[in-house]
């Protein structure tokens, strides 16, 4: 029995090599059949080293071939990423589509985009907010020009909205809080515009940010909207654009970015400085958060009786890892 015990690793090793040589005769040996954890771990490490060695050899070979060919080498393959492999979305907006242009020219944001109204934002929270949410709202108010923070005294949104409309507000932003941390945002365009409900995550306040610059000034920032390609993305992108006044003050050198990637919208606020014509330095100021759209409702906030333009349905829409909606 003692001999058998010594023999095992040798046997297993040899069996394993014959396996890796390419034959696949049953009974196939698998690492999971070794009951001893240490030995199993050793075998696994050996397997990994083998594989890594082979991969390195392959890579070296390929590099040698590529160098040997010199200029005639075929171009390098582009690695597959989820963004590359994204399923083509038929709702992607063609920039020359007239109907879309007409639709966007006459939708609820047309008053803003025709420079008829200036944005005025009311920021509030769910009832009885805790410190983090309060500070988040204050910082948001410094980032968005012409924004006012009000304490929500347990008032119903449907009652706040007519009052906002009468006081010429164009946006109502409600930050929802759960367990002392902001986790949701309802963004309602006021006269009669769409209401978007987002999930907020990864909120970093100013004092948590490393290497940040000084506080934002009162200058109107520029707005960058990245990657909103589908029709739904266009609507959301326009919603974000209409939060900020038209004419950015380039003197202030501040920029707010809404970057959409894989249906998550990342908000960043930077100050930039051109060191020379080609190089820019940026300093991140301001809060940073990510948003994910949960629903877009036509009309002002009415979750029970309103009509939804888009609702996120997890089981139907999240079944493919390569399909995105924004």
């Amino acid at each position, binding site marked *: 029995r003692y001999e058998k015990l010594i023999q095992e690793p040798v046997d297993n090793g040899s069996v394993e090599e014959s396996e890796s040589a390419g034959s696949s005769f049953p009974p196939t040996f698998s690492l999971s059949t070794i009951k001893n954890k240490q030995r199993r771990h050793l075998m696994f490490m050996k397997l990994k080293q083998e594989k890594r060695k082979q991969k390195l050899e392959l890579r070296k070979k390929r590099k040698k071939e590529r160098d040997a060919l010199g200029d005639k080498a075929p171009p390098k393959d582009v690695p597959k990423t989820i963004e590359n492999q994204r399923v083509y979305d*038929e709702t992607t*907006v063609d920039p020359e589509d007239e*109907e879309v242009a007409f*639709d966007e020219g*006459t939708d609820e944001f047309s008053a803003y985009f025709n420079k008829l109204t200036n944005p005025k934002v009311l920021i509030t929270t769910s009832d009885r907010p805790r410190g983090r949410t309060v500070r988040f709202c204050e910082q948001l108010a410094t980032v968005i020009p012409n924004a006012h923070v009000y304490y929500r005294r347990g008032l119903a949104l449907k009652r706040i909205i007519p009052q906002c409309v009468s006081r010429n507000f164009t946006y109502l932003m409600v930050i929802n809080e759960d367990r002392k941390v902001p986790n949701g945002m309802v963004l309602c365009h006021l006269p009669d515009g769409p209401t978007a409900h987002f999930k907020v995550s990864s909120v970093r306040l100013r004092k948590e940010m490393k290497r940040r610059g000084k506080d934002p000034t009162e200058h109107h920032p520029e707005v960058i909207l990245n990657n909103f390609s589908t029709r739904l993305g266009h609507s959301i992108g326009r919603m974000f654009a209409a939060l900020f006044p038209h004419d950015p003050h380039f003197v202030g050198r501040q920029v707010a970015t809404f970057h959409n990637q894989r249906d998550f919208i990342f908000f960043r606020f930077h100050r930039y400085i051109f060191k020379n014509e080609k190089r820019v330095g940026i300093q991140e100021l301001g809060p940073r958060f990510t948003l994910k759209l949960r629903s877009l409702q*036509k009309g002002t906030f009415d979750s029970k009786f309103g009509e*939804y*333009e*888009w*609702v996120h349905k997890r089981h139907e829409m999240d079944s493919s890892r390569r399909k995105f909606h924004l």
Partner: protein
Amino acid sequence: MAVKSQLCSVWVGSETGILKGVSLSKKQAFNFCEMSCLTRDQEVCTMAWGDPHETEVLIGCLNGRVKTFSTEKGIFTESRECGDLSQGRFTGLAVMDSSLITCVESGLLKVWNEGSSNTAEINVGTGVCRMRQNPSQRHHVATGGKENPLKLWDLQRPDKSIFTAKNVANDWLDLRVPVWVRDIAFIQDSNKIVTCTGHHQVRVYDPSSPQRRPVLETQYGEYPLTTLSLPADQASVVVGNTHGQLAILDLRKGLVRGCIKGLAGGVRGLQCHPSLPVLASCGLDRFLRVHSLKDRTLQHKVHFPSMLCGSDTAGEVEEVKAEEEEDEDEVWDSMEMVKEHQGKRATCEEPSEASGNRVKRKRKVAKQ
């Protein structure tokens, strides 16, 4: 133009006022609009067939005009002024013996006679959401709305409604149940009327019985039901709500037979094919989807740039004769009347998958 419009099997109206015809066999969608200048007040509120042969589509617009579109000629042939914005949107259009019946939100139901200018008017109450005509008895019309119970009118005796529904009994807290009729349909071969409400109830009324309260009541979901449609086989109804949930309900017991997945936005128009088990749905997510009712799978999906609104996909799939066989076998297999794989012949009036507008296909692999 004429050729294009003759090919179209499904007609959809949009929020920008453009009438879109979709030819599912050719997998293309065509836009038909009256003028090059579009305005938002030409938003399509309702649609109806102008005649029993389905050659004319009547479109009611937000600004009070009713346009007639001829499918044979491919152009808008007529446009009449039937009311204005102050009276509210059109909630129903119907045709009876060459006279046009229109109903608006403020409750004014008018019968416009051809040629002669006298119109018969009935006030059906305020807050009307829908007016529908009985397809078998064309002079009967039903209306209903918010706090406006279901009323059945006979146009030959317009002074009083034939049947006014009574509200159900108070609920378990002894509170009055609010009334909000959103859509109405007449069940064929019987006197019954089925309605869906904004309080997610589906009710069946029988005017021929002495009972004015609903004969059957069921609930579905938690969101207002916006439209309903009756499929070819009786005893079931398809309803859609503002969240994009479509369900097939059984009218014998009032149970949910199944749900149809795929819609992401509120359902605005639902239409079942008169003979085949096929359903077309359109909504605020800017897609027209055609589902098969038997296995509840998606057959076609067409994307449009503007929201499809208030649009009855009136004019279901017409008789498309002698379909040539196409390469896409899978969809055909799911249809009835398919004999073999090769011989998918004529009588299949069913839509094959649209691809002209780069429609995504959901392949049904099963049958093979």
